[in-house]
């Protein structure tokens, strides 16, 4: 994507955030990993973190990776964003090989990581400043995004004046403001309390539906993974490899009631078995 493209118009409240792709499906869109592995070098020799991975994430798909701690999930995310080079194999994002940070992703970490000296609006505008995009053009978009996540009226507040859940919403806006095709989320709600977390999951699904972004989300929680995902990738222990990929048969849009669906519990059970046979999930 050309970073200089103008942001989509903002006349219609929902449609302006939707990203209509000119390419439909196939390897040219979404994320493709072929033979991607990562080995860290340390003083005690090479430490394999990820065994070669092959998978494809479709455009507009909600793809969730679930796995035990230290299975290289975060490494995977850093490689897709271009922060870390894979030891072998190649990663294609929107048909282009990733060699350096490409800016076609928005990242959300476990901590909101808002800059304490910037107010909420200017935190959301950080990617625009970093990419040197025209501020005036993206300012309405930033405001519209804040409205979308229910933070209207908090633009001038400093981060510490907001609750953890609200901060995380702001960081989701920051990940979306430059209109990337892909959102990468590394345990985005891991630091929130259980109730806020459920609420944020429903919110996130709504945001994803309204913006049409491709989402790669990493989590520890199997129910969360099944609830959110179109497909769930289950990873093995370190060094990480693909244990299985499941399609989630639940219809969309989903409400929290979906968690009572027999198909939901059945899939959660099946995924959980992976970890019990491995006997390590924390």
């Amino acid at each position: 994507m050309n970073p200089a493209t103008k942001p989509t118009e903002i006349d219609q409240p929902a449609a302006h955030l939707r990203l209509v792709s000119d390419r439909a499906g196939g390897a040219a869109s979404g994320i493709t990993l072929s033979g991607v592995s990562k080995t860290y070098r340390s003083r005690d020799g090479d430490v394999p973190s990820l065994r070669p991975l092959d998978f494809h994430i479709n455009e507009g798909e909600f793809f969730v990776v679930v796995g035990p701690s230290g299975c290289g999930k975060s490494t995977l995310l850093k490689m897709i964003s271009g922060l870390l080079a894979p030891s072998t194999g190649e990663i294609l994002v929107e048909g282009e090989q990733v060699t350096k940070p490409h800016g076609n992703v928005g990242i959300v970490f476990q901590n909101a990581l808002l800059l304490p000296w910037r107010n909420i609006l200017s935190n959301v505008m950080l990617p625009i400043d970093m990419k040197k995009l025209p501020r005036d053009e993206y300012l309405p978009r930033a405001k519209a995004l804040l409205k979308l996540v229910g933070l209207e009226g908090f633009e001038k507040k400093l981060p510490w004046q907001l609750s953890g859940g609200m901060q995380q919403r702001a960081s989701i806006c920051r990940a979306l403001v430059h209109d990337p095709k892909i959102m990468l989320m590394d345990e985005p709600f891991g630091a929130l309390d259980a109730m806020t977390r459920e609420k944020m999951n429903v919110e996130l699904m709504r945001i994803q539906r309204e913006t049409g972004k491709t989402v790669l989300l990493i989590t520890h929680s199997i129910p969360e993974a099944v609830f959110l995902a179109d497909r769930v990738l289950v990873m093995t222990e370190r060094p990480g490899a693909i244990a299985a990929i499941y399609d989630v048969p639940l219809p969309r849009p989903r409400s929290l009631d979906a968690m009572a669906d027999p198909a939901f519990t059945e899939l959660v059970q099946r995924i959980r078995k992976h970890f019990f046979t491995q006997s390590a999930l924390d």
Partner: protein
Amino acid sequence: MAELKRESGVSKALNAAWVRPFLFLLFIVVMWDVTIRLFQIPAYQIPAPGDVVAVLRTDWPELLRQAWPTTYATICGFLLSAVFGIPVAMLIAGSKTVESYVYPLLVFSQSVPKIAIAPLFVVWFGFGIIPKVISAFLLGFFPVVVSAVQGFKSVDPDMVDLARAMQGSRFQVFRAVNLPHAMPAIFSGLKVSVTLAVVGAVVGEFVGSNSGIGYVMQRSIGTFDLPTMFAALVILALLGVVLFWIVDRIERFVIPWHVSQREDIVFAS
């Protein structure tokens, strides 16, 4: 009713931030005076507070005139430690190689007593302002570096990754993330540095100078003129307080967002 109001007014005045240290100071001065009278300590050992105040009043213009070179040397030394200290800290925090070469040596150099080497600067640079500035700089430099290094290093690596993933250049990321993050630590270093710079300037004046508060102290000790010496000490303390206060004000202005400044921000939720 009126009684109650007046009382709350008095307690309000007592609670004002600047009144408390002032009251405590008054208490110390009174105890000082009482002790001297009680134990009949001769004036050539410890002067009475009254005598010191008398000197301050009569010699005020002269003391003020002598305070000027000291202030000048202090400020120059302090600014130099900020101007050199912060970039050096950036290099140390930014590069493991630089850190491994420079940092241990810096700590080592810190254990060399400045007073012992101050005469060297007189030998090298004469009796002018330069030896004082260098001495102030040497004392003020280290705290700035140590604090700033700590500030630069304590940035969350995820935050830096995030900014890098937004395709920020190294410089952009530094300016938007690392530098503001380090500001509180830098300022705490600057506050220590500015008070030490006063000490440094006076040390410089001790070893070789014919002007400044340090020179006044040196001379008055020579003639057992203790009231003058104490008056000079008061001037020095005032100088330190005023400079500290100025840095503190600048800090409030530069980093109003920081936790330590939050009482100023009005909650509106």
